[in-house]
């Protein structure tokens, strides 16, 4: 973390004002910030609000577990519902009108109160489902319901954080834990989970594409597309350890990784380019290492391929810096 003071910038400002490069009216505030005379705690306040929301939801989780016997399920459900409603009432009161475009938050706390409301409401719904089983044998559907409601809230109140929660809740419904992408896929031949991950990924990528194409909350597109590609690539990569069928997964990963890197290169999507390169390289390495003496050949492969890739990456980044 840098110090609040930046003497180089503080020295440069008067020199930039003198020949008229920097507008004189902007200089005093910039100078105060560079000298450390004016410090923003905006980031710190956001972090504290986030921590506050985590603490409250954590406390609610423990509360429900600890005093369930004493106050009964109905009371707990009611308390959770009331708390969620209180958060939503505040959010609705201060929320700006709906728009399909990006809407700036009306204040610092807005996103976090919305997040708190969503988490409490989700917890309440899940609790009601577990205690009163209104969905019966279809109990896993509560995750889908939560995902859809969270998605609605994300669109209405324009929150990317809540939108990402909607997507990860959807993957949870399909048995995939988005919090540790791929981790659950490596420990066994869970074909269903793997294909669910890939399916969710494809769905998210398509959703992202549709949002951007339709210019409807187009700024949500990176969230959907990045999570989608991560799920697809992690799903395919998890098959690299499969005995017998690993070649199919390796080929799929190589194909997807290469296609993604090429597409991302074309459209200057840097993180997606990185995903594609790493996935393609992992698949190719898996195929090469199957060929023979793992120690010498492996070292030679990693040395030569990484070196060639470095030259390729340096050339690619020069081209990607050029305007589209």
């Amino acid at each position, binding site marked *: *973390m*840098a*110090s*609040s003071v930046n*003497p*180089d*910038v503080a*020295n*440069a400002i008067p020199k*930039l004002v003198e020949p008229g*490069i*920097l507008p004189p009216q*902007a200089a005093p505030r910039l100078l105060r*910030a560079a000298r*450390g005379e004016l*410090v*923003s*705690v905006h980031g710190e*306040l956001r972090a*504290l*609000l986030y*921590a506050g*929301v985590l603490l*409250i939801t*954590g*406390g*609610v989780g*423990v*509360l429900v*577990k*600890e*005093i369930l016997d004493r106050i009964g399920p109905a009371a707990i459900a009611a308390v959770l519902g009331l708390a969620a409603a209180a958060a939503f009432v505040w959010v609705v009161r201060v929320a700006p009108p709906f728009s399909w475009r990006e809407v700036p938050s009306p204040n610092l706390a807005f*996103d976090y109160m919305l*997040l708190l409301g969503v*988490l409490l*409401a*989700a*917890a309440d719904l899940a609790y009601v489902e*577990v205690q009163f089983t209104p969905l019966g044998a279809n109990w896993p559907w509560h995750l889908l319901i939560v*995902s859809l409601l969270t998605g609605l809230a994300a669109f209405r109140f324009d929150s990317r954080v809540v939108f*990402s*929660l909607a*997507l990860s*809740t959807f993957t*949870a419904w399909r*048995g995939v*834990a988005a*919090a*540790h992408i791929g981790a659950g896929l490596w420990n066994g031949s869970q074909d*269903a989970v793997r294909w669910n991950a890939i399916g969710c990924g494809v769905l998210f990528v398509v959703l992202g594409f549709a949002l951007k194409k339709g210019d409807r909350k187009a700024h949500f597109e990176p969230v959907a597309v990045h999570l989608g590609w991560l799920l697809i690539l992690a799903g395919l990569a998890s098959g690299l350890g499969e005995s017998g069928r690993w070649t199919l997964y390796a080929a799929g990963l190589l194909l997807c990784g290469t296609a993604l890197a090429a597409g991302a290169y074309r459209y200057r999507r840097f993180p997606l380019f*990185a995903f594609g*390169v790493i996935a393609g390289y992992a698949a190719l390495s898996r195929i090469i290492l199957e060929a023979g003496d793992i*120690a*010498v050949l492996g*070292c030679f492969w*990693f*040395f030569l391929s*990484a070196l060639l890739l470095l030259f390729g990456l340096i050339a690619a*980044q020069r081209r990607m*810096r050029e305007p589209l």
Partner: protein
Amino acid sequence: MRADAARADRNAAVRNAARSWHKTGVIDETTLAAIEKSVPDDRVRVGPVFRVLLFLFTCLAANAAFWFLWLLFFDNTGRQESKIAVAAIVFGVLLAVFTEIQIGRFKRSQGGTEAATSFVALGYLLGGLGWFAFEIPNQSDVKSVSLLLVEATVLFAAAAWRWGYPLYAGAATVALLGAVAHLPFARVSWIVLPLLAAPFLLRFADSERLPPAHRDSATAVLLVGLVGLYAAVHLGSFDIGLIEEIGDLARRSGPASTSQVLRWLSVAGTALVPVILLAIAVRTRRHPFLLVGMGTAVASLITLRYYVHLAPLWAVLAISGIALVAGVFALRRFLDSGPDKERAGFTAEPLFEDLARQRLLETAAAVVSLSPDARTIRDEPRFTGGGGEFGGGGASTEF
């Protein structure tokens, strides 16, 4: 640090500031271009994504090169360890020279590859020197670890000074604290050293004579030193003898001292250090103190809950959360109500920060920390009434 690299570093600081002014609408495109022209950048830089990719693949290529050459030419018969240690040191030196060439002749900065070669160089140098540290005859393991930590301190400090990486400065401080833990009066040293160094480090962190990379290195040393100081006064650390254990890994966990006076001093220190750090942060408007002050305050509150059961856990969590949110609301209102939305030089408004990056981090953090646990696909479709997860959009507590 080379003079040309230091000059480029200073120019980069101004260019970065200008870009943040542009992003927040303070200056327009033309002004940004004019500023960038007035502080030219002769370095070869790449963006953050490519930097990570180039770093990773350079690390991979360097390690693979070493082991390939080793397997091809040296891996035959006889005693291998000393040969491999010497080879590691030679390879580390070669990579250090290559780092120099990249930063000097090729003018690379924030380019990924030079950071990677410096990183791998330090790893191999430490690995090789570490092996020899443990091979000195008639020397205990404790002394060998101590020697290795001293070597690490010197290497990291030299790398931070020469190549301008604040991360290495922080690592050097960690290694130094580790080495000091092997000396008599280690706990006292962990308290005294940061206190003695802090005024100088603060001066270095603001010094016009130093390039930004060295100023950031001074800040990194200060941060680690303050965390070390807090660890030394912390009650939990006192009760388990954490620093004494670092100094002697064979030591059994137990209080650092039987003295009740010292224990009460530790209690006072645990309570007071965060308050003092936050007070300094408010008075001097310095982010490092604010950061460590907030972190240590959280740690002290957790310690309080560990030792004193004021209320059930759920109440502590929920009340702390509500208090935190309410506190932020109050602070925000207080700052906003001041002239120009600021008080004592603080404002809750974003100044020239990259809000897009903050939002990206928040979104990633939400997916990692708040996503519900996945349902178990195999368990379907049998419903037993007691299964399921308390979650969706967040919590994952089971009933």
